[in-house]
């Protein structure tokens, strides 16, 4: 009897990129659910728009590059980029913000460098930073959580708001937006108030902003699930949270009037999303085990430094991009010793 010959190993691969990406998407569900609950369905509209644009952009680029389209789209990496960018945007961002961000992420940050696996920068964060720098107004107009008595918008209102930039007749833009907790700590400190005072403001909940802390909890939950499923390693999230937490603790210990509680920093803004979903992007992170701890610590520290002393209230995107820059060097210096060789 004749058989086909194939080289070893013959065992089936235990994992696939498609599966990894799918699990990452599933793990985002709790966070997105919390976001929808507290900020309305705008986030779902943004996600849908982002995914559609990302898939179209990726398909066109693949076509131009003469690469297989269907099988590549199936790897879901474009969908992950789209969702990550969409949930980082303000919920009421107009449609063109999403479109510009996604096009930049997919076309420039991903495919100009050669597509999946070749991009040195996290595409979603590259898109985010481009938007933040180019359209600061739209990028900082955050909706107040529904909990704070903001006006409830229905589906039609949302579509009109995002696609036509129109609010229902009797509602003013200022009524529905408000500063994010990170933002308000920053401005209020600038006005000379102390942290304990600021914390009594209505935007704050138990740990961070009302609503916001639940969203962070959702991402934490999804992240822990990814850890448990071994889709991500513990090194980057732990490193990141540790780096941020340490910096925050030291500063808080020095002056608790000027610096917010470490727990606030760990829960506020994009900390949890960044620690578990963004900094862990394998393509742009350091790859060695020890290197990833350093990489996490570095990003965590940068997040704190930029939040407190930098020009922008939240810093995850900048910190991740800076981390991306250092990844090759970190890998170089953390090369393991080969078995049987001298150190």
């Amino acid at each position: 009897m004749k058989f086909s010959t194939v080289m070893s190993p013959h065992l089936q691969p235990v994992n696939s990129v498609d599966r990894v990406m799918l699990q990452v998407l599933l793990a985002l569900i709790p966070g997105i659910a919390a976001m929808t609950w507290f900020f309305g369905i705008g986030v779902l509209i943004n996600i849908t728009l982002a995914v559609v644009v990302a898939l179209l952009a990726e398909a066109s680029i693949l076509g131009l590059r003469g690469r297989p389209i269907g099988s590549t789209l199936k790897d879901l990496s474009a969908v992950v980029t789209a969702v990550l960018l969409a949930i980082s945007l303000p919920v009421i961002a107009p449609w063109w913000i999403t479109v510009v961000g996604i096009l930049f992420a997919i076309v420039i940050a991903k495919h100009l460098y050669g597509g999946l696996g070749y991009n040195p920068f996290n595409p979603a964060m590259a898109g985010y930073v481009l938007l933040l720098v180019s359209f600061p107004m739209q990028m900082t107009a955050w909706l107040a959580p529904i909990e704070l008595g903001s006006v409830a918008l229905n589906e039609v209102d949302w579509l009109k708001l995002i696609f036509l930039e129109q609010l229902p007749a009797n509602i003013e833009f200022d009524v529905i937006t408000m500063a994010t907790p990170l933002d308000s700590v920053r401005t209020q400190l600038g006005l000379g108030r102390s942290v304990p005072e600021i914390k009594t403001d209505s935007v704050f909940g138990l740990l961070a902003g009302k609503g916001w802390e639940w969203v962070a909890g959702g991402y934490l939950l999804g992240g822990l699930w990814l850890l448990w499923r071994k889709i991500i390693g513990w090194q980057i999230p732990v490193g990141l949270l540790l780096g941020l937490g340490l910096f925050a603790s030291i500063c808080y210990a020095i002056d608790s009037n000027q610096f917010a509680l470490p727990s606030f920093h760990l829960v506020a803004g994009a900390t949890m999303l960044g620690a578990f979903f963004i900094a862990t992007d394998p393509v742009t992170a350091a790859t060695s085990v020890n290197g990833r701890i350093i990489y996490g610590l570095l990003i965590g520290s940068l997040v704190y430094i930029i939040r407190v002393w930098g020009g922008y209230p939240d810093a995850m995107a900048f910190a991740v991009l800076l981390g991306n820059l250092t990844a090759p060097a970190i890998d170089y210096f953390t090369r393991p010793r080969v078995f049987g060789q001298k150190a």
Partner: protein
Amino acid sequence: MLKTWRFHGGLRLPAHKNLSAHRPIVNAALPKQLIYPLQQRSGVQLKPTVTPGESVLRGQIIADSDHFLATPLHAASSGTVKTIEDRIIPHPSGLSDSCIIIDTDGRDEALASEPVADYRLEPASALRTKIRQAGIVGLGGAAFPTSIKLNPGPQRHIDTLILNGAECEPYITCDNVLMQAEPDTIVQGALILMHALQVGNGIIAVEDHMTEAYEALSAAIEQSRDRRLTVVKIPALYPTGGEKQLIRVVTGKETPSGGIPADVGVICQNVGTAASVYNAICRGLPLTERVVTVTGQGVKQQQNLRARIGTPISDLINQCGGYQDSVERLIMGGPMMGFALPEDDIPIVKATNCILAAAESEVATSKETRPCIRCGDCAKACPVDLLPQQLYWHSRAGNLEKCKEFSLFDCIECGCCEVVCPSQIPLVQYYRAAKSKTVAKAKEAEKAAIAKRRHDFLLERKAREQAERAERSRRKKESLAKLKAAETATEGAE
């Protein structure tokens, strides 16, 4: 309980061992024909010592060579040498090479055996010669001549013998069942090896799930009353049966890169090899049979067969009830490092521990290869602590220098990296290709160097000859001149 150590990485693979681990060893029927590739070990070609038409007895040497890595080959049953011709050999290349074909006569007559009365009275060199003459090689898969391993040279001090009973590849159970069935033979074989090596410490390593084998060996050691030998259970973690990994796990020592176990004072032998050493020394039987696991969902009855070396695989499959319809691939060895065979008219050789008739559901058939996403899973799994991802980039780019820098030649081709790679990249193929390119290049460079040396030598010789000629003619002229001067002088004096 002996302390054990860990090596980096490795994989816990689904074992698939229950298919065959708990059945008794069945003696395979004598095949009508025995096939003996003259290349039993890659790169070592034996010369036939028999001619077509000649009748042979079981245990008779039919091929040998004076290559230092060669061991003689013996007929596994009596019969007539039918022919010596090219057949497909069990080799990853799938190529044909010359084979001795013996038609068996069914009488199974054997050459008179010459056992050693008391091996303890024999010098190590005599035991090594006997072991070589019995054709014994490592039965774990590498087929390295045992007699050579037993002769590490005076500059290396050996203190430990390790018997490898860790069958870390999925499916394979031939060593496990042998340890259960013949613990005494293995223990006695170990003692002979220890005597030949003059070492006082012997360790038999079995995987932690091999409870029966562990108990059988413990009892056999108890009976032998030799306190120098112990059994140790080690975690079932692929590739813990790799020589350097096993030494690390059992002794904590790291065999240096490019070195051999003897460099750290250890000699490793497979448990099956120890049993055949016992058979060779104490029963005078050369190596003509071995236990082979026939397994996989692609064969009807999974079991361990004691088969004559040279038996065609199709014969063994028939004795296991034939193939299932689902059979997809025929693998010699395990699913991680074994190689796929193009057909089943190929014989088993000394190194054949397993025939895996894998069903479609058991092997990777179509991989969805994606670009490397730099996830680092490969590096986490690599038992040698290499960076498979970097090796992949550089071998793909054909940058052999960089491959060397990232220690390509320390790669044991275990396949761990490839199995965990989410991008399903055929990593090991790239490494193999880069390795053979490097070797080819080195050979070419060597050839060039030799040619250059020859050229330089010729030039030098020419120059030397020229110089000599010049010198000679100069001397000739000189002496002529002297002669002339002397002549004129005498003339003048007259």
